[in-house]
């Protein structure tokens, strides 16, 4: 059966949503830039585990996210425990991450490229799962991973001027499609650009769930939705506030 069929949905689902979700699931199953398909699906499974993880709940309640809270993560994958910890923190307590923490967790085996791709998998899984949860749908089963090796592709023009991870400053071929013709590219779009496919996936999902990236600064964009742009921005602001997100 096709993924994201929504055949029993009591609500009319716009076709661009399941199309974007199917695209995301396909990419999730494929080898990425730094992780294999199997590893990417395992990362996604840990996103789901994190939401029922007692250690994460206790740690979120602690004064410091790095407090010595006892316990083990609710984990089912064969990923290294340090990677599981990264996924669980990104999922359940992202606003209290620090640059020194990231410096500690990165290594030769877990590079900033692995980290950026991990963020991409976490947010892809979470944004789709959240949509399902909000509408009372069961979560879509994770895709079966595809064989193959990660590409280990590093784009030209990376710099460390902004944030904690390298980002593309000026997009050159073959990354010209990431933000074509944009006068000002918001940091949140550039953030994952050391893994260009992560930005491409972000754009696909954002166009379906929010508005196309190029239209974000245009307050008239989003006119084809059943809610107004003001309502869209109100929801966006409320989600950000609950997540303690300054950005």
């Amino acid at each position: 059966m096709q993924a994201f069929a929504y055949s029993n949905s009591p609500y009319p689902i716009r076709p661009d949503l399941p199309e974007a979700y199917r695209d995301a699931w396909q990419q999730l199953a494929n080898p990425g830039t730094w992780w294999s398909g199997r590893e990417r699906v395992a990362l996604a499974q840990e996103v789901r585990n994190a939401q029922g993880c007692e250690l994460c709940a206790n740690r979120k309640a602690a004064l410091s996210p790095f407090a010595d809270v006892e316990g083990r993560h609710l984990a089912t994958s064969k990923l290294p425990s340090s990677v599981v910890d990264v996924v669980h923190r990104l999922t359940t307590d992202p606003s209290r991450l620090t640059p020194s923490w990231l410096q500690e967790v990165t290594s030769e085996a877990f590079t900033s490229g692995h980290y950026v791709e991990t963020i991409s998998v976490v947010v892809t899984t979470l944004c789709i799962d959240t949509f399902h949860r909000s509408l009372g749908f069961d979560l879509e089963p994770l895709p079966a991973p595809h064989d193959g090796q990660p590409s280990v592709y590093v784009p030209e023009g990376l710099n460390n001027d902004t944030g904690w991870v390298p980002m593309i400053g000026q997009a050159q071929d073959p990354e010209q499609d990431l933000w074509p013709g944009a006068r000002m590219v918001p940091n949140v779009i550039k953030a994952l650009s050391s893994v260009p496919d992560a930005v491409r996936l972000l754009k696909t999902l954002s166009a379906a769930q929010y508005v196309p990236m190029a239209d974000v600064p245009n307050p008239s964009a989003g006119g084809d939705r059943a809610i107004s742009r003001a309502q869209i921005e109100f929801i966006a602001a409320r989600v950000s506030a609950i997540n303690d997100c300054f950005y």
Partner: protein
Amino acid sequence: MLLRVTSEIDDQTPNLKSITQGKDVVSGVAHGELLSELVELTLDQHHQADSLATTRQAISDAMSPEALVDAAAVIGNFQRMVRIADGTGIPLDKPIAAMTADMREELGYNDFESAKNTPPVNRLLAWLAITFRPLMIKRMTAQRNRG
């Protein structure tokens, strides 16, 4: 910022406190309280399925089933964006940081842990940006109306 601009286009004045304080504060946005409730229940770790179902029905009745789907999609989208921002430690983009300095102060955003990722805005620059903000909003609104 975008909330303020887009609300003015709809001739509404949002109560920014409803962003941080939730459904119990009148939002000034059409059906804002219902939408806020949907956000809160969707993100609630205790998964109050019955309450969420009631809110879904209320939105479907008061707005439309299509509106409910669009709202759920936006919630999903911003679960993504906040993690990208906080996971990569990016600062708020400079023009936005200057134009929203007063709003962030008013809403207590500067107390968020992730506020450390954005350097303080030059006071003169912030004053200028905030002073000219209404003009900019008018320009954006006019642009929209022309469109």
